[in-house]
């Protein structure tokens, strides 16, 4: 009884806390000074159309590096927790329809994924979204035909390689052009081109590969493949 009272009290308290936020919240009319710098900087200095990508990859590059590490940690953590035992997943054999369409679909999903993270700096989306699409591709493949055997060593290699390459580019930025993770090490190229905006696309594709392989290994570990 007291417990429910306490929970109710807590919820009312939280509401009271957020209430002033909501009551006198008025939408902003224009960008604040920092956001305006980002937009101009992204267009003039980094020559990248997608401002969010420039913010993610360069201006707040350390965040994204941290972000990738968090995902890497999650993968390793889940691996540590669940890898301990071989669970024989009784997989219901998928219908024949799923089998055939999946072989076509998987390839298309892979291409879509690669497209997303290579064009991160041009179109919305980027490393994370591309990586997830690739992971869902692998998931489809995993679910569709039971006996596919994921080659773990390649997965680990891709993961580690992309991580180290990402850090390598960062160090190159530090060594060549005064800032850790500075995209200036590659030519900025023309605005809107595929090979433009310095190292941003390279970084984002590496992130894409890493996120893709990590999420796949999480799914594989969670799914408990044979």
């Amino acid at each position, binding site marked *: 009884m007291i417990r429910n009272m306490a929970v109710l009290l807590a919820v009312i308290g939280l509401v009271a806390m957020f209430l002033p936020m909501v009551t006198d919240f008025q939408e902003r009319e224009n960008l604040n000074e920092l956001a305006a710098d980002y937009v101009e900087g992204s267009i003039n200095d980094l020559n990248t159309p*997608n401002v*969010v*990508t420039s913010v993610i990859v360069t201006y707040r590059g350390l965040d994204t590096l941290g972000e990738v590490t968090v995902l890497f940690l999650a993968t390793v953590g889940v691996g540590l927790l669940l890898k301990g035992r071989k*669970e024989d997943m009784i997989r219901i054999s998928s219908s024949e329809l799923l089998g055939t369409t999946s072989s076509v679909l998987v390839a298309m999903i892979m291409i879509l994924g690669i497209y*997303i993270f290579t064009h991160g700096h041009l179109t*919305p*989306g*980027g490393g*994370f*979204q591309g990586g*997830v*699409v690739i*992971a*869902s591709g692998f*998931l489809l493949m995993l679910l569709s035909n039971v006996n596919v055997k994921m080659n773990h060593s390649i997965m680990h290699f891709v993961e580690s390689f992309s991580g180290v390459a990402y850090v390598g580019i960062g160090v190159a930025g530090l060594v060549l052009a005064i800032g850790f993770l500075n995209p200036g090490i590659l030519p900025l190229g023309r605005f809107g081109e595929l090979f433009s905006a310095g190292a941003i696309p390279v970084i984002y594709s590496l992130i894409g590969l890493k996120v893709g392989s990590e*999420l796949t290994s*999480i*799914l594989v570990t*969670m*799914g*408990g493949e044979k």
Partner: protein
Amino acid sequence: MIPVIIIGLGVIMLAAAIAAVYFKSLLASIISAGVISLLASVIYLILGSPDVAMTEASIGSGLTTVIFLFALHRVRKGKSDD
């Protein structure tokens, strides 16, 4: 026009959230959590951030729901109490 869509989506999402909390079966509440994420990605689109919409759609509704299902499967293999 836009505010109407937003309010509609909002109501559905709130309903799904409350449903997720009060559903008896785990599977149903996982699905409704997935629905919330899906609608959330639509809201992000309206609020003018496509990147986030894509991420939310793929990670929020896609992967999180899959992970939940895998976990549920692992757990339910024993006996189906939820």
